[in-house]
């Protein structure tokens, strides 16, 4: 793998940047792999990377029906944080947060990880009680978290309307300074490049049409473009299409796929240097380095695979943003898109063995999977390598819905499910 550096940039400038090495190979699939990962998004590529790096398993294929990082990795609002309420979830997301710190250096790829802090606003007395509870829970788990009052919020974000006579006055917020944003595409590309350098085969434009099983154990997958590919273990990381893959393998999951949409404005001068989220009026906003305001909406209430959101949801979201930032009322929106998120009844993921032996699922991240990308890949790689759940993944078995040990994170998930 060619190392990227400032010096390299200068060197390649001399040859007009025409001699850069390809970022990854496009190999023909082998007949058999130790591990097959279905889904070449951020989580799948991170899984492949950690399988090779931490467990020395390099005979790995990542099978992607479209192009790498073209699904929800390309469609999210890039927010990274770990201020979840319950121990199980907080430890998992904080594990991811610790991996984020230093990941650019590790991958030798600029992820533009910017720890600019995240505010979760409270607009009612009950919001504030929940915020105090969550902040205290976070601190007990060693996560940086602070409760701010109206004054504190106003000082951090002077352009927000924090006056008491709003319909939904800002009473305060929780504040995680280590949280922030990362360049979403770079995360997929960085993991892909590093995994490829260690020998992982990234197979794009290859759609899985069946999961092959024998005596209740998965043996491989059938693909539309390359026929049968065998694998000793199979990891399925396909977000919105998890239900479809589970059906191929012959079982149901407690997940439902919904469209979740986001939109960006025209680029404007730097005005917002942190991330602002509000559960109550329901919107979240940050400003990218390019200058556009990145705005996230809630999910559409109905199931859908259409990768587009509904118009009423856009209207509600922009109402919320204008409520908080009246000065943005005349900013024009440039683009709007939708991704398909697989939501779980308890707003927590499923990282689990399944009724089919050697077939593992990493899904159900719902509306908040991006922030967990490295952590999710790290624990799922360990799960695939050992054939049993990683310590941090154990509470997230799909069988928790049978014994009732749900991890209810609707409050901290930030988006109404």
């Amino acid at each position, binding site marked *: 793998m060619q190392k990227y550096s400032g010096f390299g940039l200068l060197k390649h400038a001399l040859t007009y940047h025409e001699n850069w090495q390809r970022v990854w190979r496009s190999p023909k699939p082998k007949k058999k792999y130790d591990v097959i990962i279905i889904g070449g998004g951020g989580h799948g590529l991170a899984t492949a990377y950690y399988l090779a790096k931490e467990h020395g398993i390099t005979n790995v294929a990542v099978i992607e029906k479209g192009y790498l990082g073209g699904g929800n990795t390309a469609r999210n609002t890039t927010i990274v944080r770990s201020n979840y309420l319950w121990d199980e979830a907080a430890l998992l997301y904080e594990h991811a947060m610790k991996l984020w710190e230093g990941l650019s250096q590790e991958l030798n790829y600029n992820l533009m990880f910017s720890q600019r802090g995240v505010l979760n606003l409270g607009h009612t007395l009950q919001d504030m009680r929940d915020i105090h509870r969550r902040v205290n829970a976070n601190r007990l788990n060693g996560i940086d978290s602070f409760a701010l009052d109206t004054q504190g919020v106003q000082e951090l974000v002077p352009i927000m309307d924090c006056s008491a006579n709003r319909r939904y006055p800002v009473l305060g917020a929780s504040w995680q300074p280590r949280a922030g944003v990362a360049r979403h595409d770079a995360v997929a590309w960085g993991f892909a490049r590093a995994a490829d350098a260690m020998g992982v085969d990234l197979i794009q434009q290859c759609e899985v049409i069946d999961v092959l099983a024998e005596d209740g154990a998965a043996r491989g997958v059938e693909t539309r473009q390359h026929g049968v590919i065998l694998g000793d273990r199979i990891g399925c990381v396909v977000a919105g299409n998890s239900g479809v893959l589970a059906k191929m393998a012959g079982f149901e999951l*407690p997940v439902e796929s919904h469209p979740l949409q986001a939109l960006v404005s025209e680029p404007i001068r730097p005005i917002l240097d942190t991330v602002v989220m509000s559960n109550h009026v329901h919107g979240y906003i940050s400003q990218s380095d390019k200058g556009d305001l990145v705005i996230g909406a809630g999910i559409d209430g109905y199931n859908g695979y*259409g990768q587009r959101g509904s118009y009423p949801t856009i209207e509600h979201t922009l109402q919320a943003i204008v409520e908080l930032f009246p000065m943005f009322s005349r900013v024009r929106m440039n683009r709007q898109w939708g991704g398909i998120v697989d939501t779980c*009844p308890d707003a927590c993921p499923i990282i689990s063995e399944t009724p089919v032996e050697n077939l593992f699922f990493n899904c159900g991240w719902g509306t908040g999977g991006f922030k967990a990308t490295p952590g999710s890949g790290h624990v799922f790689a360990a799960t695939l390598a050992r054939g049993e759940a990683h310590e941090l993944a154990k509470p997230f078995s799909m069988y928790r819905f049978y014994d009732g040990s749900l991890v209810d994170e609707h409050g901290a998930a930030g988006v109404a499910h």
Partner: protein
Amino acid sequence: MFYIHCPYCCEYREEEEFHAKGQAHIARPADPDQCSDEEWGTYLYFRKNPRGLHHEIWVHAIGCRKFFNVTRDTQTYEIKETYKMGEQPKVTSVSDTLETEEAAQ
């Protein structure tokens, strides 16, 4: 924007008058006291999540406030039919038919 026919109001109304309420035709366990954890879990949390035809419950939240069923394609978002509670869908997919046959056996 969906334009949904409420089978009780017998009129087409805009999507914002309605709320989606999830999968339709989920049978409540006949003998709840005898259910295993797995049966309860399946009843409460495990849902069909088809890429294609889906039967779901909607409520006419700011209209007649009645619940009714919708058969909708989750890929094209086309609404195939709406029908009252207690009625069976006319538009069904192959997998629906297979499951009904399996249940009958």
